[in-house]
């Protein structure tokens, strides 16, 4: 299988500049700048590749770049989203630990393509080793003339600033990230205007996920068409999938999009741990609908197959649930999480996530009634799509899918009426 994002992971000290250069990192940036390949041609190549955003939303990256107006006279910003916080997902963290220079190369090619002179690298506050790695890599690259003034002798300059978050899931949402970068609470903003037109500091801004940008150097080396040949027609390329739960070999795996979820679990991950049976999989991070084993058997890891199965590829954090798990308890954990992380701007989210958590607390404690289950259903229907960002929907999807797929577990825990 072609490796694009993880190709250097087995190499000793792959995070150091000397090793990265030997691995070919920065050779594509150098070619882009020295040829030079015009920004619009870089955008065109990425459009042709069909590369879609790997943070969760799956928006075509080249199209996002092409939305940036070049005639406003304002600076243009690129924000790298390294605020990886979707439960079940730990891919960006390992990318940054193992190949931070590939990340910087991808970011600089993207910056060149959109006419950006300052890259803000937004990294989640909890990340220790990834932050040290990206800061060390940026400093090495700056000393080597790769980042900063006159990049690789091209006459083009681009600053690279590492901005550390401070603990807030919502800052992974692109407008929440921008609010946080501007020095505020990480509150998402109403779209439109979209960040490409009016983003950070009121200027055109592109926000791209770490993994998305790491695919860009390969695309520049092999061409958009070559990238589009990997994976499926509508989901081209490779994807790094994080697998957690009781499988024999959990971890991050790069697969061509369209790879079978069951194959990933059985082959790459070595199957379930001894004594554990597969009960369910949440394939795209905790926000997407849960799948039962019969769906897992036919689900392919690409955007279309996931949608056909009633779920999403999301951030591709595959949470493997074994037969010993209590689905009501797991949903209770998720409701607590989304309630804790709601920024509080929109009433349906602020009140709805808290209400759902309180109802599930009652049910988990054996104090729930059948009516509580109905309330969970109607409450989540009213929350869905009624807010500035997708955080409310990110709880609606697990609640509704858990209730639909495992109704017996909820019904077994509630009583007809309120206990005396």
């Amino acid at each position, binding site marked *: 299988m072609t490796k694009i994002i993880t190709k250097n992971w087995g190499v000793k000290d792959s995070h150091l500049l000397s090793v990265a250069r030997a691995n070919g990192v920065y050779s594509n940036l150098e070619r882009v700048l020295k040829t030079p390949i015009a920004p619009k041609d870089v955008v065109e190549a990425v459009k042709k590749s069909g590369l879609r955003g790997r943070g969760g939303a799956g928006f075509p990256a080249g199209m996002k770049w092409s939305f940036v107006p070049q005639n406003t006279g304002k*600076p243009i910003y690129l924000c790298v989203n390294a605020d*990886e*916080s*979707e*439960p*079940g*997902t*730990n891919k*960006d*963290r390992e990318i940054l630990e193992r190949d931070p220079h590939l990340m910087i190369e991808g970011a600089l090619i993207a910056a060149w393509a959109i006419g950006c002179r*300052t890259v803000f690298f937004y990294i*989640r*506050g*909890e*990340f*220790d*080793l990834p932050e040290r790695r990206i800061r060390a890599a940026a400093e090495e690259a700056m000393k080597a003339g790769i980042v900063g003034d006159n990049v690789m002798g091209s006459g083009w300059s681009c*600053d690279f*600033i590492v*901005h*550390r*978050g*401070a*603990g*807030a*899931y919502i800052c992974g949402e692109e407008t929440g990230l921008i609010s*946080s*970068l*501007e*020095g*505020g*609470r*990480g509150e998402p903003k109403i779209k439109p205007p979209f960040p490409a037109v009016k983003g*950070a*500091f009121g*200027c055109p801004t592109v926000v791209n996920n770490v993994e998305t940008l790491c695919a860009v150097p390969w695309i520049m080396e092999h061409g958009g068409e070559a990238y589009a040949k990997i994976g499926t027609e509508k989901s081209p390329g490779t994807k790094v999938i*994080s*697998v*957690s*739960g*009781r499988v024999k070999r*959990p*971890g*991050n795996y790069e697969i061509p999009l369209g790879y079978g979820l069951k194959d990933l679990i059985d082959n790459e991950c070595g199957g379930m741990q001894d004594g554990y049976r597969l009960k369910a999989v*949440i394939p795209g991070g*905790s926000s997407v609908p849960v799948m039962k084993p019969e769906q897992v058997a036919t689900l392919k890891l690409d955007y279309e197959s996931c949608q056909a199965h009633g779920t999403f590829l999301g951030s591709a*954090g595959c*949470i493997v*649930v*074994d037969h010993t*798990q209590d689905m009501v*308890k*797991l949903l209770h*954990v*998720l409701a*607590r*999480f989304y309630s*804790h*992380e709601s*920024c509080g701007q929109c009433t349906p989210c602020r009140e709805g996530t808290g209400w759902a958590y309180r109802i599930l607390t009652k049910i988990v404690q054996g104090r729930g009634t059948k009516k509580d289950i109905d309330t969970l259903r109607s409450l989540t229907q009213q929350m869905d799509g009624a807010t500035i960002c997708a955080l409310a929907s990110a709880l609606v999807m697990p609640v509704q899918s858990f209730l639909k797929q495992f109704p017996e577990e909820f019904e077994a825990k509630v009583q007809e009426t309120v206990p005396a």
Partner: protein
Amino acid sequence: MTVSSSTLKLAPEAEARIDDLQRRYPTKAATLLPVLWEIQTQVGWLPQEWMAYAAARCEVPVSKVLGVVSFYTMFHQEQPGRHHVQVCRNISCTMLGAEAILACVREKLGVTNGGRTADGKFSLEEVECLAGCSWGPVVQINRTYHENMTPEKTAQLLDSLE
């Protein structure tokens, strides 16, 4: 807008790092998170007088600083223990045994979520996903990740800390 003044100063290297960032960021207000991190790294938490310093340094009202500090879970308005023990309680870690880890930490330290031991050595915080799901359960102490934890390993780790 009233901009407060402050006579406090961080260590010279930290002041220089902030000066450098304020030259590179489009606004001074945008350096609020980096300034708060510099303070917390040096002081250990964010006392009110230092929030006033941050307000003056970034030319924003103190109320805005308080709004920001209270929004993010990692900014401390009270002094945490020397070893701030953060136990992930999210879905993958829960499936892999986070509850037993939490029970172990609570019992050993005699504190609950948000609490600090009387000697100031430890504090406990139950946290959300740390992006270590594949290697859960995860415990983070100060900035260091400890993965694939068991109650036994957690107890040993706590015993080993000075």
